[in-house]
């Protein structure tokens, strides 16, 4: 096992049977951006700063992979994790690991080596599934440029993009990887920053930029970009980003369907994309994402009933700030919320619920409302 891989199912890996391989990259510390720990700072900072959210997002995703990911045909075989955090070394622990792991920082050199190793795992079978998560700064340039900034971005102002990877080129190059199912989750703000206009490259190419696939299997690939503009993409200090939250909610059920008719709820690329989009819909000003190739396939099964979102509000909405909301099932209270301006967003296992809005002596309700993935709006006229 290399320094990057924190989890291995060795028997699955040795078996050569189809499996899932994941890589998770969270970049919180940028050494050479303002607030970073190393000198000299780069002039090509474009207003970008340190981030506290990516290590938390990386942890949340890794926890989900180890606790909840379920693909009976392609069980999880490896997880690689690279995290840069402002406070120094990042230690990850989980009951499935024999001991806590100090992860390698997400510098260019480390990410390059980890990605190549992850690709090699993917090459072992055309039936493999590979998952790529990145959380950190990203800069966009036009139709073809998406650059992911790593923690040593800006080490040299002679070539600041030495510390960055050209994601579009990486993605195209991954057509040459044996794994025929590939998902990319890009939790970056896509800032059209001066970095993109003042630098001449879109980052380094770490896998040969060649989309010509030499395998019989089709290349099924899906990229999920964040739709939030600027720093709104992260939003909350020391917590997973809004995108990661929307992604995990999607993976827990909001992005699921039971269209196969066998009673099993599965996560498909399209349903997940819609769920993430919806999850971010109320979190800030949007950027429109570029048209990306998103092929339909299912890659995760739920072990239990899916979770779904209920968005409860008064009609008129101004009354939210005076209403106490209650959610009940079979006469039992599930949850309640005190008056607040925003609509009440409550995540519950799919099923039928009663919703009540109470303003003083006035009490209005909606009964036996089916809450199912991805979500349902409950409007109570009060």
């Amino acid at each position, binding site marked *: 096992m290399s320094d990057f891989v924190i989890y291995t199912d060795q028997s699955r890996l040795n078996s050569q049977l189809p499996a899932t391989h994941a890589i998770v990259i969270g970049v919180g510390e940028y050494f050479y951006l303002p607030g970073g720990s190393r000198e000299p700072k780069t002039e090509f900072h474009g207003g970008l700063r340190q981030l506290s959210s990516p290590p938390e997002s990386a942890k949340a995703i890794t926890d989900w992979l180890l606790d909840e990911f379920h693909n009976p045909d392609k069980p999880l075989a490896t997880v690689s994790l690279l995290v840069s955090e402002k406070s120094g070394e990042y230690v990850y622990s989980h009951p499935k690991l024999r001991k806590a792991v100090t992860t390698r920082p997400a510098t260019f050199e480390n990410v390059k080596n980890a990605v190549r190793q992850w690709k090699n795992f993917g090459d072992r079978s055309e039936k493999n599934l590979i998952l790529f998560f990145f959380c950190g700064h990203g800069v*966009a*340039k*036009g*139709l*073809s*440029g998406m650059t992911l900034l790593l923690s040593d971005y800006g080490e040299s102002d002679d070539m600041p993009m030495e510390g960055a990877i050209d994601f579009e080129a990486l993605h*195209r190059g991954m057509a040459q990887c044996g794994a025929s199912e590939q998902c990319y989750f890009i939790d970056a703000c896509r800032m*059209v920053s001066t970095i993109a*206009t003042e630098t001449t490259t879109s980052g380094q190419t770490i896998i040969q*930029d*060649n*989309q*010509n*696939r030499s395998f*019989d299997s*089709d*290349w*099924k690939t*899906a990229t*999920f970009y964040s739709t939030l503009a600027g720093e709104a993409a992260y939003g909350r200090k020391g917590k997973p980003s809004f995108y990661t939250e929307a992604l995990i909610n999607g993976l827990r059920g909001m992005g699921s*369907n*039971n*269209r*196969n*008719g066998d*009673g099993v709820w599965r996560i*498909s*690329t*399209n349903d997940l*994309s*819609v769920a*993430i*989009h*919806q999850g971010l*819909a109320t979190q*800030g*000003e*949007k*950027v*429109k*994402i*570029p*048209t*990306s*190739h*998103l*092929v*339909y396939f299912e890659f995760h099964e739920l072990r239990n009933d899916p979770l779904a979102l209920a968005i409860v509000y008064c009609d008129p909405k101004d009354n939210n700030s005076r209403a106490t909301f209650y959610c009940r099932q079979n006469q039992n209270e599930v949850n309640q919320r005190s008056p607040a301006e925003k609509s009440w967003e409550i995540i519950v296992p799919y*099923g*039928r619920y009663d919703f009540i809005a109470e303003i003083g002596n006035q009490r209005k309700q909606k009964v036996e409302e*089916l809450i*199912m993935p*991805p*979500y*349902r*709006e409950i409007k109570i006229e009060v």
Partner: protein
Amino acid sequence: MNVQIKAIAAIDESATSGLMAQLYLEKENKKIEFLKSLTIPIEGGYWVSGERLQVDEGKYIIQVLLPDGQTVTNDFEIKSFENEKEVLIYLPHEGPHEWTALHAMAGNFRWEAQITKGFENPLSLNPKGKYKSLSRDFREGYELSLLKADKNLRSEIFGDDYTIDKLSRLIQNNLDVKNAIEKFGATLKIEEPTREDTDFAMFKIAYSGVLSKHETPSISHRFYPRRNFPRHYLLQKSVLGGTLISLPTPWIKPFDNGEAEMEFLVKKNSIGDPLELAMTINEPMINTVLGYINVGAFHQATQLISTDYALRMLFQKIENPFAAVVGTYLLILENNRERSLLANNYWKEWINNLDKWFPWLPDGAVLNAAKHFWLRDYSRSDKNDFDVSFNESFKALNRAYERGLPVFTFGLKLMMDGFRYFANEKINEAKARLNKLETIADKTDPSQPFLTINFSQR
């Protein structure tokens, strides 16, 4: 018994295939069972009928995916004595204004709508003023012009096989907008928007130009095979530079052969910053498809435009070659070889004709080339078949390049994918052309469906 389901929206047009929906049956244990995916009509300005579904007595749930990614879920019950039932789903209107309803459905400026709450609150305390005054001096505002490329003898950019080369050079030269825009030749300044208020200006654009408030496109257009058809563009200039926008006009509506206008919506308080705009076609089905693509719901887009429907759009390319291109792009971009090769023989012939019959439309040739480099539509075991396919594809791709700029943004992306494929096969000419396209792609707005290029940034 019969059930008819339709969505009701506050828009002028209607569509028989308007939205994708999923129908579920609630079982006695309160679990739900998926029954089928279906397309439902959008009823806007005139009545449309929906598909009649035969269902049994029971409790049902219908879940509709809107073009902006929102989901509407409705319950309905069929009782034993009912023979006919109509289920109506009222679509929310969340746009800034009533006249932006089509954009609102696709989620454009939804955030702004939450702030303005209709007309209640302006977006800015310092409104920018009317377009007419803003366009008097582009250094203080912005100006839109129509460009008719074909008859434009003064245009250095259009008029021969080297548009892409010349546009790429123009971008590299980084001229200021005043000098750069002269390279496009004579333009027709747009004097008035179709609708306008404090925050937004709406331009309804037909092949004849910008329509006034109550005007509808009046001239009928026909396309003929192997005949040139002059393409139109929009040019925008402001103190931040200039933008060239490819127009899919005239967009001919299915069935009645009238022209659907393009709706171009500008947020005025973005003027002075990178311009925020949204574009769509006043045809609800296409508006839905563009919205679905934007939220990553390709699968639903390809279900809404089924293989049969996409093939019909392709077959009816003489009526509307732009729609034929959209249908074929969906078949190709979904990258589902099983589906797209389902009607293999028809496909090959028709897409070939889309390329050959419309020499003014580069997208057709790009799609023809993509049969090889994207769909890998050749025999893996027959080297001769591969070689023929390889050579034909490269020829088609070069034909597309020489025809000029694709109409659609995904056309440019697919054209680049093609040249990258051949460049990786060590063809130097492909590498050179890819470099030119990359210069243009760097200045292309990836969020717009119709090719939008920022050719000057000062």
